[in-house]
């Protein structure tokens, strides 16, 4: 600018060679700073690309997130193509019901049932009265993503949410023995964690029976309708009850699940009898031990300080004096 001004002001005085030099300088600067018109199309292209990335990214991320979300919130009750758990199998659910209905149901199952919607009431009955919880933070958008996921997974021959399946082969006695060993803790669980017996009871296993914290597992096989995926899920640490009561319970190995289901099946079929003698023996042992300890204490501290006055009186009575 200064150069330009000074050029204008002193136009007359500037010698020719200098004018040439200034012209040359101006030309040079024009070449190095191309005009906005020339870069605009290129910039627009880039901006569009960036916008595309920005808008698409969450969609890709959302797809992954939805899978994780499903695993965390839905998979404990639903499979996709793996049969019924507490909730129905979701394979091809979008074909059975229209999307808007499903979306509404996901967002607030209670409202649908309360409204007396016949399909919702039927689902509720099928789940034996277990109400599907409304997931906190559930939005219409999220519900849509979930339905997308279910649709996509239904189309696959084998969904990742099929759940663990137990073969229909009959269990071998070795399987049952291994199940007993795992249940009673004689064999460590592969991924660590307490043995089943610390919280559950199957009469006849472990002498005195197991813990009382978890439910009695004698009839678990019948309760959970045989060798279903439900059975397997109940054994998985992600099962709601396990998640609540033994937070630190690591996942069971599929082979361990196999052995334990074998045990449950065997228990259901053949039954187990509580050996009463062991309990009696233990009680007697405890009682005897307690008495022994008391006698021992009394012997060790037999010279301990007792009543003073009463002893005086008693000693006197022993001497036969009034």
């Amino acid at each position, binding site marked *: 600018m200064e150069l330009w001004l000074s050029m204008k002001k002193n136009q007359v005085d500037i010698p020719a060679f200098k004018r040439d030099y200034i012209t040359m300088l101006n030309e040079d600067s024009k070449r190095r700073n191309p005009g906005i018109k020339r870069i605009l199309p290129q910039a627009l292209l880039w901006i569009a690309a960036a916008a595309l990335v920005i808008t698409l990214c969450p969609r890709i991320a959302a797809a992954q997130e939805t899978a994780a979300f499903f695993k965390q919130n839905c998979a404990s009750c639903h499979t996709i193509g793996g049969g019924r758990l507490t909730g129905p199998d979701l394979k091809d659910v979008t074909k059975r019901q229209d999307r808007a209905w499903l979306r509404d149901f996901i967002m607030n199952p209670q409202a649908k049932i309360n409204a007396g919607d016949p399909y919702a009431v039927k689902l509720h009955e099928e789940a034996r009265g277990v109400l599907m919880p409304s997931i906190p933070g559930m939005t219409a958008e999220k519900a849509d993503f979930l339905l997308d996921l279910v649709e996509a997974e239904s189309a696959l021959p084998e969904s990742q949410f099929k759940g663990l399946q137990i073969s229909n082969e009959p269990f071998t006695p070795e399987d049952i023995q291994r199940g007993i060993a795992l249940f009673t803790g004689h064999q460590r669980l592969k991924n660590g964690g307490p043995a089943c017996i610390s919280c559950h009871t199957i009469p006849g296993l472990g002498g005195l029976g197991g813990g009382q914290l978890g439910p009695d597992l004698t009839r678990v096989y019948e309760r959970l309708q045989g060798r279903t995926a439900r059975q397997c899920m109940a054994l998985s640490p992600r099962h709601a009850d396990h998640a609540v009561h033994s937070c630190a319970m690591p996942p069971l190995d599929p082979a361990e699940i196999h052995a334990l289901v074998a045990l449950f099946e065997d228990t259901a079929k053949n039954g187990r009898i509580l050996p009463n003698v062991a309990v009696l023996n233990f009680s007697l042992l405890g009682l005897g031990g307690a008495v022994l300890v008391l006698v021992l204490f009394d012997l060790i501290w037999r010279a301990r300080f007792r*009543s*003073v006055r009463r002893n005086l*009186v008693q000693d*006197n009575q022993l*001497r036969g*004096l009034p």
Partner: protein
Amino acid sequence: MNVRSQVSMVFHLDKCIGCHTCSLACKNIWTDRKGTEYMWWNNVETKPGTGYPALWEDQEKFRGGWEKKNGHIRLRSTGKARIVTNIFHNPHMPSMDDYYEPWTYDYQHLFNAPEGPDQPTAIPVSMVTGEYLNIESGPNWDDDLSGSPVYAENDPNLEGLSEEQRQQLFAIEQLVFFYFPRICNHCLNPACVASCPSGALYKRGEDGIVLLDQKRCRAWRSCVSACPYKKVFYNWFTGKSEKCILCYPRVETGQAPACFHSCVGRIRYLGVLLYDADRIEEVSNLPMEEMIEGQRSLILDPFDPHVIEEARKNGIHDSVIQSAQNSPVYKFVKVWRLALPPHIEYRTMPMLFYVPPLAPVMSTRQNEVLNSVSKDLFHDIDDARVPLKFLANLFGGGQEGKVVYALRKQKAVRWYRRALTVGDVDRETAERMLREADCTAEEAEMIYQLTSLCTFEQRFVIPPMYREEAIEAMRDPLEAKQGAGFGFLSGPRRGL
């Protein structure tokens, strides 16, 4: 020299008639609350007897006081290791039965009883359980009951007496006993204070009264077993221990403690002693024979200018020093050497002293003729009905010398006054006896005056306590000025 003042006491056993007025005065003021029914901060025992609680003097059983081990004194009841191993159970404590189960009477039964062949009675009811009870003992169960094979014959002070002496002591129609009123001794080296794991017990700096902080007490009951005189009690209702407070609210306002004030026989004296706190440890470690002299040497002469100067340095007010100069306790303990500490062998150095009692001469009356066993007019000292050994066990740490000295001087004063007032004994004999008893005529007059004619003011020389100054020494009285509104303020509550 570290001069401190202590409100100390003398009980003149020769004057005690065993009326229990002191006990009742104390009971009515302090221990008529729930949980304290069984406590008698002041009680009167008949000696020989096992006392209250039963056999309290038997430290093999109760493990009270200090014992000397490896040249240094230790608490008998507890120690650093013992307190851990016995953290859930302190075995050496008197049970409720060793005191007695307190009772009242179901007076309604006098009116409600169904008609029957007998007069209805007021049935005893336990004050602890509220149920009818069969009374088995009481706080003075062996009162006036010398010769009882259960109680009197088991007195621990009979140790060292020959079988013949015992038989003589308990022979029918020759029974002898005297009374032994007891309160907290407010010791110089208190075992209860030393034993408390919570630091709830303390000896007040300005007057030496041993107190138990009811807020700090955590019911360890170490003090109950550590006190060899069993004068700390556990309140089963509040879950805190309690003890004689020497009626400090009364003493601070210039009144004698309730038991002192109410004493019918005027046996009690109260006054200040100045003592050297620096030498307490040294004296409590002395061999047994030297302990009585040692404790006397702790008590300082309030007329000594050096002592006065040191006392002033320690902030003892001139009026307190003056009070110490007038103290009857100082005269009995240090000047006349008549008063002796009970059971100095426990090494707690009690600051309650006893003038040992003279026993009357045994005599029988037959047809207006009085036959005396002894030709002596008063107490036979060497051939006394209460054996010297017994008194020595009680007041002399097992040594008879100090007890003999005190008895001889008392007897000499009696003879001297008999010669003066009645005139049926030889004046010269009386004066010879005074000389033999290390006593002058003037001293005898003073002893007579303070024993027989003493006024209220002479018996109780209560120092001004300057409680406000004692408090100021510990905390700034302005520290809480205008401070209300923050922190916690517990309102005043009645009683302890």
